[in-house]
C-alpha cells in the first residue's frame, strides 16, 4: 500500500487559488490512485474545501494543472466534472426532501427513453445501485424527507455512484452520523474501494482517517505540509503537522469532587414524542456528557429542556422548584442557555454584526433589565474574554471562521449569566485551535458554578470533558458512566446489548 500505483486516477500539480487577492491555495500537489482512500486533513481555513471544489468543478484554479485519468482537464462546472467521473458528497446533504430517493439519485441525469424520463428504469436502477452497496432495505420510491440522516447519507453516496464516479470526494461524511452509522459508512467505503474507485476523504476525525486511508495529506494555510503513508504516522504527529501542538494538552482538568454543587436541574420521568421516562440530575459545577447515537434522543433532550419542543410528561425542578419550560423564552428566564449543533442554520444571524449577534438574546428576553449602554459594554468585554479573533465588532459574522462564530454565540449566552448551559456538539466543524479554547471555556464555566450539559458525537471529546456521562438510546437513558470510562463502554450502552438499533 505504501507505493503509489504507477497510473494515478487524479494528479494535482501546483494548484493555486486566490479570492480577491487572498491566497487560499498555493502550489498544492496531490494524487489519488484507483481504489485508494486518500485523506486530506487540516484546520478549518486550511483550504481543504476549496481544493475539493477545484477537483469537483466548483471552482477553476488560478494556477497549476488537474490531470484526471491521465488527461489534463479543466472542469467547467460540477456537471462537467460529474461527466468525467468525479463525484462529491458534501458536508451538508444535497437532497430534495420533497422528491423520492430515485428522483434524487438520478437528478441531473435521469434515464431517458425516447426523450422521456423512464420512471420504471430509474427506480430499477436505483434499486440495483442500493443493492450493490448492501442497502437492500431502503425503498427507492420513498420520499427523502421521511428518511433518517444515515439513510440520507446512503442516498447521497448512491447519487454519486449513479454517475459512475471513478473518484469520489467525501467532505466530512460522518459529520451528521452517529458512531454505529459510521461503521456502516466504513463498510461502504471498503466496498467502493474494491470496485476500484478512488476516494478523497476529508475529515476532522483522525480516527476515521487512520481507519480508512492509505495516505494522508496535511494542508495548512493553503499549502501542503506533507503527504505521508498512514501506516508510518501517528495521530500526535498529524496534529503537530496541522497545528504545531501536542495532543496531550487537549482537555482541561475535570472538576474536583468538592467543586460539585447541589442538584440544579432535576428531570423526573420526563418525556415527549421523542423521549420517554428520562430521569436525570444535573449538578452545579459539573460537566455532564451526553452520549448516544444520532436520533437516540440526545438533541431532543436538550431541545426539550430548552423548551423548543417541550416535555409533555413528567416533572422538572430547577433548584428544587418545579418549573414548566414551555418555550426558549421561559427556559432563558429560568437561566438556561442552549448552543445548537447547527450553527449556520440556528446559531448565527449571518448578515448582522458580531456585536448584534452577541446581543441578540439579551435584547430579546431581558430588554428592560439593564441600561443599553451598560449591556453593550458588558458584551464587548465578553467578546474579548472569549477571544474572538480577527474581527471587529462591526464585522458581519458570516465572514468569520466557524470557531470564531461559535465563540460569538457563546458570548451571546454568557451575557445572560446562565446557570445551566446546554451544548449540542459545541466543537463540530471547528478547527483544533478553537476547539481547545472552547473546551477551556466550558470547563471554566463549570468551575464558576454553572451546570453544563454537553452532547458530543466525538468520543474522545466526550470522555475527555465529562465529569459523568449519560448515554441515551431510543429516547431514554441507557445508562450512566463515571469519568474515565472507555469508548467501548459508551458504545456498548449506546448500541445496546441486543444491538437493536434506533431509527
Amino acid at each position, binding site marked *: 500500500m505504501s507505493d503509489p500505483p504507477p497510473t494515478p486516477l487524479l494528479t494535482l500539480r501546483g494548484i493555486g487559488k486566490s479570492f480577491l487577492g487572498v491566497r487560499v491555495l498555493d502550489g498544492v500537489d496531490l494524487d489519488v490512485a484507483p481504489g485508494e482512500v486518500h485523506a486530506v486533513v487540516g484546520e478549518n481555513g486550511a483550504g481543504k474545501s476549496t481544493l475539493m471544489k477545484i477537483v469537483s468543478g466548483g471552482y477553476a484554479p488560478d494556477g497549476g494543472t488537474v490531470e484526471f485519468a491521465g488527461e489534463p482537464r479543466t472542469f467547467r*462546472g*460540477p*456537471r462537467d466534472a*460529474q*461527466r468525467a467521473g468525479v463525484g*462529491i458528497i*458534501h458536508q451538508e446533504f*444535497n*437532497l*430534495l*426532501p*420533497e*422528491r423520492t430517493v430515485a*428522483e434524487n439519485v438520478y*437528478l*441531473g*441525469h*435521469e434515464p*431517458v427513453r425516447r*426523450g*422521456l*424520463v423512464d*420512471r420504471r428504469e430509474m427506480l430499477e436502477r436505483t434499486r440495483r445501485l442500493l443493492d450493490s452497496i448492501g442497502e437492500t432495505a431502503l425503498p427507492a420510491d420513498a420520499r427523502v424527507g421521511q428518511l433518517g440522516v444515515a439513510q440520507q447519507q446512503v442516498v447521497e453516496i448512491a*447519487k454519486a455512484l449513479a454517475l459512475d464516479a471513478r473518484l469520489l470526494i467525501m467532505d466530512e461524511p460522518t459529520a451528521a452520523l452517529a458512531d454505529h452509522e459510521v461503521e456502516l459508512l466504513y463498510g461502504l467505503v471498503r466496498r467502493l474501494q474494491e470496485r476500484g474507485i478512488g476516494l478523497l476523504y476529508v475529515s476532522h476525525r483522525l480516527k476515521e482517517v487512520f481507519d480508512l486511508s492509505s495516505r494522508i495529506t496535511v494542508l495548512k494555510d493553503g499549502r501542503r505540509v506533507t503527504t505521508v503513508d498512514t501506516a508510518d504516522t501517528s495521530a500526535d504527529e498529524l496534529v503537530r503537522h496541522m497545528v504545531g501542538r501536542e495532543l496531550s494538552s487537549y482537555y482541561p482538568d475535570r472538576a474536583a469532587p468538592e467543586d460539585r454543587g447541589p442538584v440544579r436541574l432535576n428531570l423526573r420521568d420526563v418525556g415527549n414524542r421523542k423521549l420517554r421516562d428520562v430521569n436525570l440530575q444535573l449538578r452545579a459545577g459539573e460537566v455532564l456528557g451526553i452520549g448516544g447515537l444520532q436520533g437516540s434522543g440526545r438533541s431532543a433532550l436538550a431541545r426539550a429542556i430548552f423548551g423548543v419542543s417541550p416535555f409533555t410528561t413528567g416533572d422538572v425542578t430547577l433548584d428544587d422548584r418545579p418549573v414548566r419550560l414551555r418555550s426558549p423564552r421561559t427556559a432563558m428566564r429560568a437561566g438556561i442557555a442552549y448552543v445548537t449543533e447547527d450553527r449556520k442554520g440556528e446559531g448565527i444571524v449571518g448578515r448582522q454584526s458580531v456585536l448584534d449577534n452577541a446581543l441578540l438574546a439579551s435584547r430579546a428576553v431581558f430588554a428592560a433589565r439593564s441600561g443599553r449602554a451598560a449591556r453593550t459594554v458588558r458584551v464587548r468585554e465578553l467578546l474579548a474574554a472569549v477571544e474572538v479573533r480577527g474581527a471587529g465588532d462591526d464585522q458581519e459574522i458570516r465572514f468569520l471562521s466557524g470557531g470564531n462564530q461559535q465563540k460569538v454565540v457563546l458570548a451571546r449566552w454568557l451575557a445572560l449569566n446562565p446557570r445551566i448551559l446546554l451544548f449540542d456538539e459545541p466543537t463540530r466543524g471547528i478547527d483544533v485551535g478553537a476547539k481547545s479554547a472552547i473546551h477551556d471555556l466550558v470547563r471554566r464555566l463549570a468551575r464558576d458554578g454553572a451546570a453544563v450539559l454537553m452532547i458530543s458525537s466525538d468520543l474522545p471529546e466526550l470522555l475527555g470533558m465529562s465529569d459523568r456521562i449519560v448515554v441515551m438510546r431510543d429516547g431514554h437513558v441507557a445508562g450512566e458512566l463515571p469519568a474515565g470510562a472507555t469508548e467501548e463502554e459508551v458504545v456498548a450502552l449506546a448500541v445496546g446489548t441486543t444491538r437493536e438499533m434506533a431509527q
Partner: protein
Amino acid sequence: MSALSLLPARRPVPGVFVALTLTLAIGWLVVLLDGGQLFNQSTTVSLLHVAAGLGLVAVGQTLVILGGSLDLSVAYVISLSTLVAAETMNGSDGALLPAVGLALAVSAGIGLLNGLLVTKLRVNAFIATLGVGLLLKGYLDNGYDGPAGTTSPTLVQSLGYQRIGPVPVSFLLLVAVTAAAWFALSKTRFGHHLVAVGGDPEVARLSGVRNDRILVTAHVLCSMCAGLAGIYLASRLGSGAPRVGTEGLYDLESIAAVVIGGTALAGGRGGVIGTVGGVLLLASIDAIFNQLEVDAFFKQVIRGAIIIAAVAVYARRAMRKAAA
C-alpha cells in the same frame, strides 16, 4: 373549507378538487333554492370560458412558481399578445398562422427577458417581472389608445365561440396545454430539473442541473402560455385589446389560482392539475355569484378570504406532515 383538512395527505388528489366539488354542490343547491339553475348550458359554457382564459395563464404561472420564481408581467404579455395577433391577422384568415406564431414568439421573447433578468442579472423575480411589466405598460399605453386590429374570422369562430356540447374549444385547448405541462413536469428531464431548482437551487446546481437554463425555459414557457391566453382572448373579443390583461387582473389571479391549487409559493412542490382545480374553483364562485346576483364587491371579499383560507389549510397540512 374545513373538509379539505380531512383529506389524507396524499399527493395525487389535490384538496382543491374536494373544495371544488363542495362549492359546486352547495352552489347548485343555493342557486336552485333561489329559483335558478347552475348547470344549464349557457352558464356552464360561460364558466368554462372564464376558466379557459385564466387557466392558460395559471398553468404557465405554475411552471415558474414551481421553479421558485414568479411572473407579474403576464397581464401585460396577454394584452400585447392580443394586439400582435389581431393586428397581424387584420381580419384575414390567411395570416392566421403567422399571427399566432408571431404572438407566441413575442411572448417567448418577453419570457426570455424575464428569465435572463432573474438568472443572469440575479434580480429578484418580483422586481424583475414587475419592471418588465412596467416597460410593457408604457409601450401599450403609448402605442394604443384602444382596441386595434381584427382577429381572423376563422379563429373567432373556432377558438372563440365554437363548442362541443357545453365544452368550448378553448377549454379543450386548456386541457391540452395542461396535459402537455403535466407531461413535461413528470416525464421530461426539464420537469424534474425544474422541480429540483424550485426545491433547492443549490442542490440542483450541484447535481449538474443547469439552473439558469431551466429557469429561463420556465419563464419562456410561462410567457408563451400568457401569449396563448392572449390569442384566445383576441379570438373572443374579435380584436386586440391593450388593457384586457390588466382589467382581468390576470397577474394576481393566476398566482392565486396556483396557490389555491396547492403549489407552494416558494417552489418545489405542486403541479398543474391542482392549478386547474384552483382556476375552476375561482370560476365556479364567479358563476354561482353571478346566478345569485351577488354584489361584485362582496364576491371580491369572499375571494380574498378563500385565497387566504385555502393556503392556510395547505400550510396546516404541511405542518402536520412535518410533525408526523
